[in-house]
């Protein structure tokens, strides 16, 4: 039990942190926010999947991908294709020239369903595809690059180019993908209406549950021997290689895992928001998700969730009241976080809040000050 606690939550302290976040997400937010705001929070939580994947990839393995939006989008499109096919049954689309195909295909004079859409009629296939399509793409890209020892900024530039390619490619093929408008008018999931109030509540809680599942899975991976190798690799890659490990295999694995996690986020996004479009796939969302992870602390899994929620809440509040200032704030945040707090909120917590709490506890217990050495300096990055 004790080891399980350690592996899944990171010890008692991590368990407390996880419980605290769980209380916020499961109890506080649903009780205080109306359904519109809660749905918005649910949308942000789907970005948190990507932020968590970046914590794995960037914070712990030292590989910065600027193309996580690609995997978010692929997961989202897989889900959206299934939902769109369900929404386009021959009865509701009987006014079309070809009933039974999605409306945008009909507008683009397509007369039959393209072959790659056909398997998405099956729900099990779509669910598997949400995980497997991003992972396979990540495997191809990762294997090609990590095996040739391409890393660092070159990997970042190339993944960014992939994000551009995918968003332009979706945009340019209106008949096959819905083009710039994306896939819209999604109504039901296996006959269950996702647009009702109860549906949105349910989906919010499903997202929260999946997010915690993903966080625990990530912590399990990071606390394994592989997590240690990843960590060592991000510090001194050559040394790990000389010790006899094939560095690229570990990188490929973590890249695929991160891609699959982002894919889940994308699928949950589609379910809660009801559409997907290429604007969620491209360069800008991909890089924004990096800043979510950076604000939370790039090595902290829970921090990524806080970072995502804070930046997005800030964004929606800011752009409602001062739309002009939002870009300044966002840009300033980028610079500030990177230059002044490289460990993000989690770093602030570990450096300032925790020592203060410990001091407060001591004062409360009125223990006479002893000469024992403080451990504040070593308590970094426990989350």
């Amino acid at each position, binding site marked *: 039990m004790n080891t399980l606690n350690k592996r899944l939550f990171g010890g008692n302290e991590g368990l407390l942190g996880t419980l605290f976040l769980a209380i916020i997400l499961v109890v506080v937010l649903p009780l205080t926010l109306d359904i519109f705001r809660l749905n918005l929070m649910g949308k942000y939580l789907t970005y948190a999947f990507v932020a968590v994947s970046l914590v794995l990839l960037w914070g712990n393995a030292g590989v910065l991908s600027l193309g996580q939006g690609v995997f978010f989008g692929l997961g989202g499109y897989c889900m959206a294709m299934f939902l769109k096919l369900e929404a386009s049954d021959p009865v509701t689309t009987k006014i079309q020239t070809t009933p039974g195909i999605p409306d945008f295909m009909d507008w683009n004079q397509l007369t039959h369903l393209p072959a790659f859409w056909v398997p998405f009629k099956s729900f099990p296939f779509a669910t598997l595809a949400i995980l497997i399509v991003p992972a396979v793409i990540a495997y191809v890209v990762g294997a090609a690059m990590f095996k040739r020892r391409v890393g660092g*900024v*070159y990997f970042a530039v190339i993944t960014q180019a992939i994000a551009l390619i995918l968003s332009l490619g979706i*945009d340019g093929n209106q008949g096959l993908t819905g083009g710039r408008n994306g896939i819209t008018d999604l109504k039901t999931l296996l006959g269950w209406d996702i647009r009702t109030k109860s549906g949105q509540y349910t989906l919010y809680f499903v997202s929260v549950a999946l997010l915690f599942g993903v966080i625990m899975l990530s912590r399990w991976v990071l606390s394994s021997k592989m997590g240690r190798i990843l960590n060592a690799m991000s510090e001194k890659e050559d040394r790990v290689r000389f010790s006899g490990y094939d560095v690229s295999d570990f990188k490929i694995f973590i890249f695929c895992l991160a891609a699959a996690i982002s894919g889940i986020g994308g699928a949950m996004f589609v379910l809660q928001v009801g559409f997907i479009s290429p604007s969620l796939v491209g360069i800008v969302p991909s890089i924004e998700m990096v800043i979510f992870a950076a604000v939370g602390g790039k090595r902290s899994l829970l921090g990524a969730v806080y970072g995502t929620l804070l930046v997005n809440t800030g964004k929606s509040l800011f752009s409602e009241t001062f739309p002009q200032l939002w870009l300044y704030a966002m840009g300033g945040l*980028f610079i500030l976080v990177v230059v002044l707090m490289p460990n993000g909120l989690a770093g602030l917590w570990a450096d300032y809040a925790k020592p203060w709490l410990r001091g407060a506890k001591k004062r409360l217990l009125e223990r006479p000050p002893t000469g024992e050495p403080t451990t504040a300096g070593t308590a970094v990055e426990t989350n």
Partner: protein
Amino acid sequence: MFAYTTSELTSIFTMQGFAGLSLFSVLLLMALGLAIIFGQMGVINMAHGEFMAAGAYTVYLCSTLTARFAPAFQPYYFLFAIVAAFFVSGSLGLLVEWGLIRFLYKRPLDTLLATWGLSLIMQQTFRSTFGAREVTPTLPDWLMGSFKPTETIDIPINGVFVMALTLFITAAVMFFTFKTRSGLRMRATVQNRMMSGAVGINTKIVDRLTFAIGCGIAGVAGAAFTTIGSTGPDSGSRYIVDTFLVVVFGGAASMLGTVASAFGIAQTQSISEFFLQGTMGKVATLLAIVIILMIRPQGLFASKVRRA
């Protein structure tokens, strides 16, 4: 593709080839600045496009001021505006290096994020100052028009001008890098910072000037850009990914590689844009580059395997 006659195809290839040459000029001008900043110094400047936009806006400002205060000067202002663009973007670069970049030399991935933040701020500044609409400076008459060597071929003069400017700047950058003392100091600092410091080169000053020159060249690229397109707050960021690909594809440390890859990318894109619909020409080009880079990560003209 088979519906055209041979002479039509020749014209198409000539004109698209020429359009490709214009694109080549812009890509090369942007990539030259980036080849210095990224290829030589290893700094990922995501705000490079905004330095280009700053140059373009400088030309616009010069054009407006000339039209209002010295209309007689109209035919000549453009040449001065190019110089002004170099210095405006260059001094901005100097400021940014001093205020931000110099703290981040050891953390390349963080530079990327910080300069992305910078680019957002600069874009919003452009938007607040010049408005969200795209602007076009009044070009002098001698830049307008076109000449027609044959009935079906039509070559615009501004394109020729941009190309000449590109050739000039490329030659100047090559000369500076390989034939002057400052260029020598720059290359020395890039190759071995400690050693350069030990022989008496002030590496901090060299860094600052190198960054400023790279940004200044981006400003000239922006000035050239105004002759073939209008300028908006985000016109710089539209080219940033292409520019990075040009530099990476050419081989980061090689100037010659940058020229060759800018040429290849621009020509492929412009010719494939004619035969494929809409943005698919660009998609095909980018995809080809990415696939080639996966097979040959060191780019066209570099022997070292790159790791950052």
